[in-house]
């Protein structure tokens, strides 16, 4: 019996050590992980996923902690995946979110995993998504993913969640950046945390103004419909009547958490009652399929091709003897004749 079979059985039986091991295999991109997921896949699809993103230090981890505590009062089992960037130079990472989640320690209904972005083939979003799948199959009712909303990676990760919570705080001066990274567009619920600090009203007002701008633009260009944008491959138009709420919280005092939980619940109900949830899932899976297929085909083709052939082509392209598109054409037609 392969190791992965054993691991899968243990994960399904609720063994936390096995769950942690399997997550590592997924992160490492091992063949065992693929085998395991192919068995676990039929057990997925029941967890609700929440992405929590926002600028560094806005209070995401504290907020996640409070949200988890709230969900625990309803007896929901909750997993948290806290993603932090790897250093592009050393490949190392300092994962510090767990430090803020110490209040959750000792609760058997909670599982916390820190994850570095690494240099994943196919993007970190895929690795995160697979980790979320494993947690879903392991029976968690909610899977919450925390990412620092600073770059494209983070937007990608947040996009795999059912409800995306964008966290801001007064005096961060990052409002413009949030728009640049496209985060405001994917936010379903906006939270202004640290509402005990001066400047809350300004931050709320600024965010509301930006939301309105965003909405008007959507309505003008898409006649009241919203695009589910997916890697530029497929766009689906469905009516989007969701009004993004802008909430205020004080995570360190547990204030506003019930309202946040309610907003997430409202959004979940909205998604399922409008059929958007099912549509999103389909589009997401189609994208994943196409991305995986693309990676696989490229990998197979490069495997079959002697490396000097590739170098020759690159040399020819660099010398302007051949253009890149024609090079691709010749690669593809050559590989067909084999």
């Amino acid at each position, binding site marked *: 019996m392969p190791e992965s079979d054993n691991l899968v059985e243990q994960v399904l039986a609720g063994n936390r050590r096995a769950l942690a091991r399997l997550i590592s295999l997924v992160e490492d991109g091992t063949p065992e992980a693929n085998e395991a997921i192919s068995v676990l896949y039929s057990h997925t699809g029941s967890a609700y996923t929440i992405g929590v993103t926002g600028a560094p230090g806005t209070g995401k981890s504290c907020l996640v902690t409070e949200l988890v505590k709230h969900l625990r009062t309803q007896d929901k089992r909750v997993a948290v995946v806290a993603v932090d960037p790897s250093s592009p130079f050393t*490949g190392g*990472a300092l994962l510090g979110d767990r430090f803020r989640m110490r209040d959750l*320690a000792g609760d058997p209904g909670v599982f916390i995993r820190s994850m570095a972005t690494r240099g994943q083939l196919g993007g970190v979003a895929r690795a995160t998504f697979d980790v979320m799948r494993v947690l879903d199959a392991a029976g968690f009712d909610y899977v919450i993913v925390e990412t620092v909303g600073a770059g494209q990676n983070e937007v990608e990760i947040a996009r795999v969640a059912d409800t995306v919570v964008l966290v801001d705080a007064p005096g961060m001066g990052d409002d413009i950046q949030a728009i640049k990274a496209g985060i405001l567009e994917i936010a379903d619920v906006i939270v202004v945390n640290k509402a005990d600090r001066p400047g809350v009203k300004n931050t709320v007002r600024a965010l509301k103004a930006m939301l309105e701008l965003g909405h008007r633009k959507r309505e003008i260009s898409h006649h009241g419909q919203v695009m589910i944008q997916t890697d530029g491959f497929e766009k689906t138009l469905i009516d989007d009547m969701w009004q993004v709420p802008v909430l205020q919280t004080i995570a360190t005092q547990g204030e506003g958490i019930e309202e946040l939980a309610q907003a997430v619940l409202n959004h979940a109900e909205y998604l399922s009652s409008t059929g958007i949830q099912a549509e999103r899932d389909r589009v997401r899976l189609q994208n994943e399929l196409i991305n995986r297929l693309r990676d696989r085909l490229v990998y197979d083709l490069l495997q079959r091709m002697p490396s000097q052939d590739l170098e020759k082509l690159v040399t020819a392209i660099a010398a302007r003897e051949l253009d890149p598109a024609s090079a691709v054409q010749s690669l593809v037609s050559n590989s067909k004749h084999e």
Partner: protein
Amino acid sequence: MGERKIRVLIAKPGLDGHDRGAKVIARTLRDAGFEVIYTGLRQTPEMIVEAALQEDVDVIGLSILSGAHMALTPRIVELMRTSGLEDVKLLVGGIIPEEDISKLKEIGVNAVFGPGANSEDIVKFINEIVVV
């Protein structure tokens, strides 16, 4: 396809004040290419072992300045055993008297590093002891 990364948990058990030393070592290990989970101050043995299990770390590094190493470490070793973490390496850093070092090693601590320890040595030790 992917890459295997050495994962290290840095924790500070016990009740003593600051965690400057633990933070410095956490950063050093990150710069050496490890994935470091930093859990900070005032961690109970239960919290440390639970975190090590969930994070599936290869190494647990304890920073103990309070002199409570002989109270805390055996408890951690015992919890590691009952949680199935026998294969996780355990390092202790701090001011540990010579006679306690051998006692700690006897109960299963893989290495003890004093306050003057060279960070390169710690990195080298981890790279050697963890089977990737």
